[in-house]
């Protein structure tokens, strides 16, 4: 087992794109760590640099305190599961699982034994071991790829979007399975994904990346409840957060010509006339059919049924704001409604750099854990 340290890592692609820009990161021993971001943000380059498949232009990578920056991939003692699983079509499942051991010159009998025992722990058994990967379902292939990584007994697991080739239902099952497996094995794990729900569900901590930089490094619940900037705010959450331009005035603010109160904690840190962006999750606002003086009001334009609740799109001035309502009080299309944000969860960002205001010592609310699986 080992921790993983990244120091000043920089990778510039031919053409000048800085895929990684002087990046620092420490991943603790045994931690399940997710790298989250849109495509092109550098998360895959970071993972491949850790693996040794990309050579950084500057910076250091340390695994368990040992500098591996210049070591070839095979000498780094880590295993990687690829998006396409990289199962060799010409080898049987057992041969695939045991291929890392073959490279380590483990004898044929021991290889078979390991393939069987590791396979059994992942429900790969019986006739499946002697089939070719092409004859397996997607979920089975994914487990074979996992088994191969486990059979190698690495100090670090690297996952490159390993669930993205599975269909939706199977992906949820595999996610739960993967989380439990990592808990049981306790191996430091770096997991790349562009799916925010996956990152929230799996990770102990996560880094949200954009254009070669880490925009937030935090626990999943903090990333969800207190996104550090508008980028993270807009990226995380299965229903996108409302980001409303507003102007501070007299301790409150103007939004599309209407008045809204500002959270207490922010009031001291903004000046009248300052442009801000309000971040409001659809889940953290009440929709009222009767007039509420402190609310934003407008007609309902779209109604979407999400199952447990409904997503309401309200036209407020020239803005469109979304909020969820429980199934027992869904307004009708065209109804005039009043929207009241939960003041404790209303986030305020500076309009110029998009950073959150009031990151001060006083937390705006008590630490809450969010069950990502229900997002």
């Amino acid at each position: 087992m080992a921790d993983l340290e990244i120091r000043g890592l920089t990778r510039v692609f031919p053409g000048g794109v800085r895929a990684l820009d002087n990046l620092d990161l420490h991943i603790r021993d045994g931690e399940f760590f997710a790298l989250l971001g849109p495509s092109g943000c550098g998360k895959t380059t970071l993972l491949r640099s850790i693996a040794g498949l990309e050579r950084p232009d500057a910076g250091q990578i340390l695994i368990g305190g040992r500098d591996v920056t210049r070591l070839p991939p095979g000498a780094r003692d880590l295993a990687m599961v690829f998006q396409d699983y990289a199962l060799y079509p010409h080898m049987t499942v057992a041969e695939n699982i045991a291929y890392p051991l073959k490279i380590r010159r483990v004898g044929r009998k021991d290889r078979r034994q390991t393939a069987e025992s590791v396979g059994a722990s992942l429900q790969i058994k019986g006739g499946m071991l002697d089939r070719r990967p092409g004859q397996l379902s997607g979920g089975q292939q994914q487990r074979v790829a996992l088994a191969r990584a486990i059979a190698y007994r690495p100090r670090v697991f690297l996952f490159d979007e390993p669930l993205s080739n599975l269909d939706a239902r199977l992906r949820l099952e595999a996610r739960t399975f993967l989380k439990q497996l990592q808990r049981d094995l306790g191996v430091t794990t770096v997991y790349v994904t562009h799916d925010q729900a996956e990152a929230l569900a799996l990770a102990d901590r996560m880094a949200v990346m954009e254009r070669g930089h880490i925009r937030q490094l935090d626990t999943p619940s903090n990333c969800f409840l207190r996104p550090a900037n508008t980028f993270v705010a807009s990226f995380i959450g299965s229903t996108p957060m409302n980001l409303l331009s507003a102007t501070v005035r007299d301790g409150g603010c103007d939004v599309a010509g209407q008045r809204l109160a500002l959270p207490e904690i922010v009031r001291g840190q903004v000046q009248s006339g300052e442009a801000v962006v309000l971040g409001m999750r659809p889940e953290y606002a009440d929709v009222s059919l009767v007039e509420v003086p402190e609310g934003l009001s407008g007609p309902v334009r779209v109604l979407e049924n999400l199952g447990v609740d409904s997503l309401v799109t309200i036209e407020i001035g020239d803005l469109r704001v979304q909020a969820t309502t429980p199934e027992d009080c869904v307004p009708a299309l065209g109804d005039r409604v009043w929207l009241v944000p939960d003041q404790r969860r209303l986030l305020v960002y500076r309009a110029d750099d998009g950073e959150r205001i009031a990151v001060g010592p006083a937390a705006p609310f008590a630490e809450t854990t969010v069950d990502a699986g229900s997002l």
Partner: protein
Amino acid sequence: MGPDAAMPETAPGAPSAAAITARRLVGRLAFYTFVVVVGAFFALPMLWLAFAPFDAHPTLAAHPPTEFTLGNFPDLLKNPYALPSLLNSLVLSLATMALVVATAAPAAYALSRVRIPGRDVLLYVLLLFSSVVSGTAAMVPIFLLVFELGLINTQAGVVLVLAGGLIPAGIFMLKDFVDSMPTSYEESARVFGASPFQILRDIVLPHARPGLAVIGVWVFVNVWSNFLIPFILTRDPGKMPAAVVIYNFYSEGGQANLRLISSFGLLYSIPVVVLYLVVNRRYGFRFYGGLKG
């Protein structure tokens, strides 16, 4: 083919049902006439090769053997050049195949996987030259070059010239095969600590096997059929491949020996036809075979 169901309602001005039926009948008739004529066009010249080898007294006319015999084939042994030329063809084809596969495969692999400076220019130049420089257009310097190298009238000269011409296309075809192999296969093995040699042996080669087989057969068929290069580079009838020897059988003066030509021609043709059909069935040779020429 075509919509068979009768339209419940015809648009205004549309032809009547009877007119449609009549038109379709004429169309069918024209279609079958065309198919029969084209079929005959391709079949008739081939008939001779199917009948004459088994005829004790073949003529230039294609007709079922008047006196069936298999004796024409053992008689080939009596000709000092016939069977040895098949062996020459085999040697030329196998040697060129080995040379092309052995040089084009590593080149294709490197060109597919490594960003060498100037790679795209190199590929363009290769593609351009391989299509521009044909054996016919360069026969003079090829003849002189092989002459200067002292390789005139040797198998090696023919093999080198043919290989030089086939390698570029071979590289392109193999590069397609390597390109289609996910890089994650090699990356995964590297992460597990496999050496470059182990990666080539355990992963790349097994994966590229169908590609290598296709290229191998493609080279074999090309060399087996090639007439011009051995024709200008070999003088000694004992060293000529079948393509040249059979031409000598019918181009030399005097009465052509039809028993010899027909049975030898059949024997010489069968291997490539069989190879093509087998590979086509196994690997879908269609397009790659298309680069024969």
